[in-house]
């Protein structure tokens, strides 16, 4: 049994080697197709991910509750929203108070006094490298021109209290643009004891919790009590969110389309090999084993094409230093198409098997 299987394997390999042009063409064609699936899925996923990042940057997930004149916004109520599922971080803000940067003669910078997990809040604003949560004391917008995003600085702030010595504050340099253009160049620092009354509650939400958080916030800070609510990104509800765009990207079915194309290629290959397979059948090889030779030929070609495509994809990923979701999505698509094409090889060969050995032998 093993000897006969080994003989089939040897025949298959010998057939592939005996027709180098056909074999090489098939491998090149398949590996190119597989690689195209990978690249297409990578690029489409990257575009969707960029779109999601842009939405996040524009304030898609920042909910703003403001107290109108006369309404009292309690910082504790705002910060208690951190207990809700779907809230990444909630902070209360008071201000702004104009302070001088570095010294009394330094540039004026609006400073907001915050209550709540500020570092966590700023880290959630945008998916920028370097903005990881850190036990820090404050944040300052990158437009203040004192450093780059992710840098840490100790800055001196001179408040208009009459003291001449600047208050030294540790700050992360972050991008506050998701909160709106009005906060360009502003600083957020933890509120001192004598801070003004908060007027704004800001919440960053998880991607899939926007509606739930908006509803909860509306209950906690009702309009009838003088509060207004909105997303930092105007008309955010009209935008397709990044996750939906990613999950409904048309390239999701590219692997399926590629599999169908490969099925056609396999059928053409099996048609090309019809005569030789009929020779095996005429010489007494049982139909199952004839099909095994045809299937093995295709599977070997498919396997080599898969290996080449995977190697090329790996090189591309390392060369371009790409990573994350697009690479995962592209790898999944590549795996899908490679597995699916391997699975369809046997059915295609069976479907294309000659009904008449004599006809197949004459069909040169």
């Amino acid at each position, binding site marked *: 049994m093993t000897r006969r299987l080994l003989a089939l394997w040897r025949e298959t390999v*010998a057939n592939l080697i*005996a027709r180098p042009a056909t074999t090489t063409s098939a491998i090149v064609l398949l590996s190119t197709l597989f690689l195209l699936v990978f690249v297409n899925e990578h690029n489409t996923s990257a575009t969707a991910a960029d779109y999601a990042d842009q939405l996040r940057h524009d304030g898609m997930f920042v909910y703003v509750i403001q107290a109108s004149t006369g309404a009292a916004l309690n910082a504790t109520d705002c910060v208690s929203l951190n207990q809700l599922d779907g809230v990444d971080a909630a902070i209360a803000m008071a201000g702004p108070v104009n302070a001088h940067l570095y010294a009394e003669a330094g540039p004026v910078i609006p400073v907001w006094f915050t209550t709540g997990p500020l570092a966590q809040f700023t880290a959630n604003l945008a998916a920028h490298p370097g903005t990881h949560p850190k036990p820090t004391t404050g944040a300052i917008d990158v437009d203040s021109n004192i450093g780059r995003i992710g840098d840490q600085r100790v800055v001196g702030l001179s408040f208009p209290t009459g003291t001449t010595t600047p208050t030294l504050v540790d700050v992360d340099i972050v991008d506050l643009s998701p909160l709106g253009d009005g906060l360009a160049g502003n600083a957020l620092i933890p509120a001192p004891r004598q801070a003004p009354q908060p007027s704004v509650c800001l919440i960053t939400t998880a991607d899939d919790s926007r509606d739930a958080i908006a509803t909860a916030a509306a209950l906690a800070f009702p309009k009838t009590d003088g509060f207004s609510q909105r997303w930092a990104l105007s008309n955010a509800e009209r935008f397709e969110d990044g996750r939906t765009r990613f999950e409904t990207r048309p390239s999701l079915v590219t692997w399926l389309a590629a599999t169908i194309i490969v099925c056609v290629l396999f059928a053409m290959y099996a048609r090309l090999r019809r005569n030789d397979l009929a*020779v095996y059948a*005429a*010489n007494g090889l049982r139909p199952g084993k004839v099909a095994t030779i045809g299937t093995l030929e295709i599977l070997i070609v498919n396997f080599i094409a898969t290996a080449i495509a995977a190697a090329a994809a790996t090189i591309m990923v390392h060369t371009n230093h790409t990573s994350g979701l697009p690479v995962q999505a592209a790898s999944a698509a590549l795996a899908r198409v490679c597995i699916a094409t391997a699975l369809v090889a046997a059915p295609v060969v069976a479907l294309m098997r000659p009904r008449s050995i004599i006809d197949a*032998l004459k069909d040169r």
Partner: protein
Amino acid sequence: MTASGLGYRLPTGRTLFEHVELRLDPGDAIAISGPSGTGKSTLLWLLGNLLTPTAGRVDISADHPQPYAWVLQGLNVLSARTLLDNSALCNTIDGVPPRVARTRATEAVDALGLTSLARTRLRNVSGGELQRATVARALASTRPVILADEPTNQLDRDNARLVMELLDNERHHNRVVVIVTHDTAALPSTIRRAELTPGGLVE
């Protein structure tokens, strides 16, 4: 091998032949001739189970899982493979160890005067050489029945005689040999002869 009441009707409705009776024992060789279009090749395919008869039956008792070795007018080759690979094919299919299959194939190739072409791919050989290649495969195998369809129609007289003699010689190895041919002049006198007519085989 026995054929009893064997007949074949084409899908068009035309009956090629009927009432063919044939009995062949180990060591028998028969040459079947007849005018073109009488169905000689079809009869061979019926005997070799490549086609299903529309009348009658073919019975064979052999202890070999695959009893037939074919010589099929140059159609029956793996053209991208070498002469030696093709000659060893039946043995490969029968699970004969590769070295033994190779040795038998080499002997058959040598016997047919094709030694210099042993490692040549069959797509690069002439029609006559291709025909001898299919004969080499039948000779190299140990299957009990050789079915040869016009094994000499592209060969010169000397090669035709050589092929016929080699096939006839297989009788001495207790094999059954059935040859369909127009070339009765090349047949050794020791081979039984029969003519296929629409009404059956006439010996």
